[in-house]
């Protein structure tokens, strides 16, 4: 069973390394943030697996939980920062409608009225 856990851990590690491609390559910053988030979530699992292997999992749970929390905050902070940078500064009029280059919008059948805001 231990071998199985080690194998799972190594597999997770390899897949994390593969996800690193998205972090390195981009193409946009937000893609990198996404990749880092995926890696971070898996790190928490990896910590628990290591704890289980060393038979002291109760010590590692705190670490994993703390890591998961901080990873969550990091992701939110990075996303908020990215978002903030693309927001217009105050003197300009804030755009009311979403970005023009967003994917095409189709009106949901049940909503009525509301002019289309497709790109």
């Amino acid at each position: 069973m231990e071998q199985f856990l080690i194998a799972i851990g190594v597999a997770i590690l390899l897949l994390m390394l593969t996800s690193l491609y998205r972090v390195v390559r981009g193409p946009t910053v937000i893609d990198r943030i996404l990749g880092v988030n995926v890696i971070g979530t898996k790190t928490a699992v990896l910590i628990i697996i290591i704890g289980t292997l060393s038979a002291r999992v109760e010590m590692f749970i705190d670490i994993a939980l703390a890591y998961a929390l901080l990873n969550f905050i990091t992701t939110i902070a990075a996303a908020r920062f990215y978002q903030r940078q693309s927001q217009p500064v105050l003197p300009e009029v804030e755009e009311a409608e979403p970005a023009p280059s967003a994917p095409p919008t189709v009106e949901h059948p049940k909503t009525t009225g509301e002019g289309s805001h497709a790109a």
Partner: protein
Amino acid sequence: MKRLTLIILAACALIMLLAASDLPDWADPASPASSHLSPGFVEQAYEATHTPNVVTAVLADYRGYDTMFETVVVFLAALIIMIILRRTPHRRFCKILPHRPQRQGRDTVLKGAAQLIIPVMQVFALYVLGHGHYSPGGGFQGGVIFGASFILLALCYNLEFTINRFRERIVLLCCAGGALLYAGVGALCLAMGWNFLGYAALAGILGVSEAMARSHGILLVEVGVGITVMAVMVSIYYDLASGGDMREGL
């Protein structure tokens, strides 16, 4: 120029790598680092401080003097960041930061998540702080998580909301107060006739054995560390995220 630097650094690296030959092997149980001081710590710490977590015992008691200054470093960082960023802008030099408005009615999801997560996170932080004796944790870790909960609040709501809950002046007071608690415990021991930071001096006040007094002393200074680290995290976030003008965060 860059190539020259690269060559010089590569040469230094090569020398240092080849010189690694007389360093002990990785994870060698017989290396001097593992055989000189560390057995003493592991074998004596529990008896002397009633703290199963040897790292905590060494951190807050054997090397408590270091840790006090470590807390001071944290405090110092917050102080410097505040003193540099919060100064009245220089008439000629500094540009005013661009101001982006807060988004109204947009953060439903983040706010909902923050409502659920933040209280749990704070209890977890206090748990980590309080159980530093038995599990990996202690003042720094607990303080960081607690401070992060305020940062999460500022991220999910906005900076103004957080500042209204936890004002800048109080943050600064907490920064100094935690370090003061640490140094104060040490000075109390000194006033009791023991050496600085000799928590065993607290045995008389608390009415427990010397080892237990050390254990409680460790908890006290960890609380001090936790307060400082928490406040410093928040303070640094306030200053850095808003560029020092406290108008808006991320």
